[in-house]
């Protein structure tokens, strides 16, 4: 079989994939939104670095940060960012069982258990962090 010849046959219809291939189908759109959540992950890091810097510079700087964070535009941005970051977390924990096969005493641990373990860890860490911050 002459493989190279068949690949470049000029009469075949080979449509080019459109740039916005992901808009028309719900599952693709959800996928791209999931990927874009990484932008808000990066924004969260920037925002938290601003906080760390403000805290390290003293009470006045910290107050300025608090004022900045209560600015309506900043608040709106952070609400959107929070939604995306939570979306990232949920999709991550739901997909993790598919990517890992854990064996306990020879039997495969069910997916729901792996996902639940992630969610439990999430709840625990969140509670601990909130307690540490709010004191």
């Amino acid at each position, binding site marked *: 079989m002459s*493989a190279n010849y*068949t*690949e470049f*046959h000029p009469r*075949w*219809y*080979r449509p080019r*994939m459109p740039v916005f*291939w*992901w808009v028309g*189908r719900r*599952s*693709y759109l959800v*996928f791209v939104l999931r*990927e874009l959540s990484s932008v808000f992950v990066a924004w969260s890091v920037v925002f938290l670095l601003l906080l760390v810097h403000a805290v390290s510079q003293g009470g006045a700087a910290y107050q300025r940060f608090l004022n900045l964070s209560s600015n309506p535009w900043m608040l709106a941005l952070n609400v959107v960012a929070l939604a995306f970051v939570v979306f990232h977390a949920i999709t991550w924990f739901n*997909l993790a069982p*598919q*990517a*890992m*096969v854990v064996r306990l005493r*020879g039997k*495969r641990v069910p997916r729901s258990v792996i996902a639940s373990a992630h969610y439990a860890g999430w709840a625990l860490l969140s509670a601990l962090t909130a307690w540490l911050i709010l004191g």
Partner: protein
Amino acid sequence: MTVNGEPRLTCATFLTDYRPGPIRIEPLRNFPVIRDLVVEIGDFMRKLPEVKPWLIRDEDAAAPDGELLQTPAEMDDYKQYSMCINCMLCYSACPIVGLEEGFLGPAVIALAQRYNLDSRDQGADERMEVLSTAEGVWGCTFVGECTTACPKGVDPAGAIQRYKLTAATESLRSFLLPWRSA
């Protein structure tokens, strides 16, 4: 073929399920169309042998005495990935297959895993040369549509993510401990 936008096995898809219609049938997406509903699958056929989807044994070792034995638990390790019928619905569903010409694709990687995880196989290192590349697992972004489209429950997306961890762990090990032989 593509039925109402979804990749489907038309031999197992019933018109009655789509009542009252209309129903739209298109050739399988992501493959060149020769004519009407016929697509050319040569791309898949060329990519499949690249991962050596057969049992690879150490040729220098003595021939085994009798069959190679395997426990039911050992078979369970790879059984899911052996269910692939090469229908290529996953290729139709995967956007990376459409975007990247060289991408090996879900079924090929799942079939490579079927042999990598087989206790009788000794070829995992050979396959890593092909799999741990941009055209192999690293092109995959875990869209997950391949698993949704698969009529046999192979879960190629899971196979690929598992292999990413295997390959990454191996890369890390060879980076941190380069003197240790594989």
